[in-house]
C-alpha cells in the first residue's frame, strides 16, 4: 500500500465510525433519559401526546446513603464477576421463569446509578431484583449468614465466604442484637460465649442487596402481572 493519506483516513474513520455509531448515538439516545411515572396518560391539551400524571412517584428511586456505601463494598469485593444485575425479557433465557424479576430491565432502570454493574457472568444468580426476593429482617439475617459463609444457607455453593467482613468477639454482658443468628448446631457458629457481629461494611452491603428491587413499572416496561 502506498496511498498513505488513505491509510490514515481509513484508520481514523474506522474507529470514528463505531465511536459515533455506538457511543455518541447511544449517549444521545439514552443520556437524556429521566425518571418517570409508572404509566403515562394522554395530555389534556393534546391527547396524542403522553405525559406523566401529576403527583405520581417517579422511578427508578434514588439510592439511599447506606445503600450507596454498600454498593462500594459490592464493587470492592468484585461481586460483579459472578453476579449480574440485569433481567432478560420473558422468553429469552429463563430469567423470567426463575422468578429473578417481574419484568425485563431496561435502560431507564439504571439512570440513577453512578456505576452500572450489569455483569456478564452468572456463577451466582442475578441480583437485579434480589431485594424483591429476600427481604425483611429475615432476609437481612439470611444475607448476613450467607455472606459469613454461604455453606450455611446454600450448601454446595461456590461462592467464597466473606467472613472478614464480620467480627467474632466475646459476648460482653448482653448479646448484641446484630449478632448473627446461626441455626442450632451449626458448625460455623462461634464457640459458646462468643458472637459474630457484622462490621459496618457488611451491614451496608446487606442494605444495598435489600435495596435492589425491580418492583415498579416503567412506561416502556410494564410489570406483567
Amino acid at each position, binding site marked *: 500500500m502506498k496511498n498513505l493519506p488513505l491509510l490514515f483516513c481509513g484508520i481514523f474513520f474506522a474507529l470514528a465510525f463505531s465511536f459515533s455509531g455506538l457511543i455518541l448515538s447511544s449517549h444521545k*439516545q*439514552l443520556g437524556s*433519559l429521566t425518571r418517570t411515572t*409508572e*404509566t*403515562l*396518560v394522554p395530555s389534556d391539551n393534546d391527547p396524542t401526546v*403522553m405525559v406523566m*400524571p401529576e*403527583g*405520581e*412517584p417517579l422511578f427508578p*428511586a434514588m439510592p439511599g446513603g447506606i445503600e450507596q456505601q454498600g454498593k462500594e463494598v459490592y464493587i470492592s469485593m468484585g461481586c460483579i464477576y459472578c453476579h449480574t444485575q440485569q433481567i432478560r*425479557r420473558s422468553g429469552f433465557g429463563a430469567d423470567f421463569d426463575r422468578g429473578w424479576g417481574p419484568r*425485563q430491565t*431496561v*435502560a431507564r432502570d439504571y439512570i440513577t446509578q453512578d456505576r452500572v454493574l450489569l455483569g456478564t457472568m452468572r456463577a451466582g444468580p442475578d441480583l437485579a431484583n434480589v431485594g*424483591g426476593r429476600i*427481604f*425483611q*429482617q429475615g432476609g437481612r439475617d439470611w444475607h448476613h449468614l450467607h455472606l459469613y459463609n454461604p455453606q450455611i444457607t446454600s450448601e454446595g455453593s461456590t461462592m467464597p465466604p466473606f467472613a472478614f467482613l464480620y467480627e467474632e468477639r466475646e459476648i460482653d454482658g448482653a448479646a448484641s442484637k446484630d449478632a448473627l443468628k446461626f441455626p442450632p448446631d451449626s458448625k460455623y457458629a462461634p464457640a459458646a460465649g462468643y458472637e459474630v457481629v457484622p462490621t459496618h461494611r457488611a451491614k451496608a452491603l446487606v442494605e444495598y442487596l435489600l435495596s435492589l428491587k425491580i*418492583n*415498579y*413499572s416503567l*412506561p*416502556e*416496561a*410494564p*410489570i406483567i*402481572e
Partner: protein
Amino acid sequence: MSEQPHNSSSNSNSREALEKAAMQDEHMQDVHAQLMREKEEPHEGFSPVPIFLMFVFAALCFWGGVYLVEYSGNFQANAFSPHFDPNANAPKPVEISLYDRGAKVFRNQCAACHQAEGNGVPGVYPPLEGSTWVTGHPEVVSRILINGLNGKIEVKGNSYNGNMPAFGPSGLALSEKDLAGVITFIRQSWGNDASEVTEQMIADYSANYSARSTPWTAAELKEGLGPIPEAAPAE
C-alpha cells in the same frame, strides 16, 4: 560485498585491519552468522482473491443488511426486544383493581418498614396483619395515612413508639386513588378481611383532614369518627 555495512564507521584505510580483527572476534562471528542466515524482508505476492469468496461475502453483507432492518426495533430508544413493534407500543393505560393498585403502592412505600408480609419488625414497626387499627373503622386508618401518626400506640398487645410519615397532601401526597388502593390492600391482605375503602371515601376524608398539619396520636384517632359509609359493605 559491494557495500559497507552502515554500522561501520571505518574509513578505507582501516578496513582491512577491521576485517582481520573480525575474523578473530567471536562476537563478530556470531553477528556475521546471524546476518548471513537472515532471509529477505517479507513482501507480498499478488494472487487474486478467489471468486467464490466474493460471492460468500456479498451474501453475508446482504444478510447483515436484512438482519439490521428486521431486528433493530426502528432504532428507537425504547425498543428492547428484536420483535419490537412500534405500532403496538402506544402505552394503553392499564385498568387494574383498587387492590392491585394498592399492592404496588405497598411494595414501594410501606413494605420497607411494615414488611412485605405486613408483620412489621418487633419493637420497631407495628404489624398491619391482624391489627385492629387497620381492620377497624376505615376512617382511623385513613387518618393515619393522610396525616401520619406520632407517639405510643398499642398494637396486638405490644407497645410501639414510632413516627409514621404522612402520605396525604402534607406529606408524600399520594393520589386519592393510591391511598384508597393501599388502604384497601392492607385491609384485605395476609388474612385481614375488612371492607374496601373507595376513592370517594378518601376524597371525603381528605376534605376533612388535609388542612390538619400535625400527625395523629393514638388517643385522638378514636375520637370523632363518622359513620361507616353504606357504599362499602364488609365482604
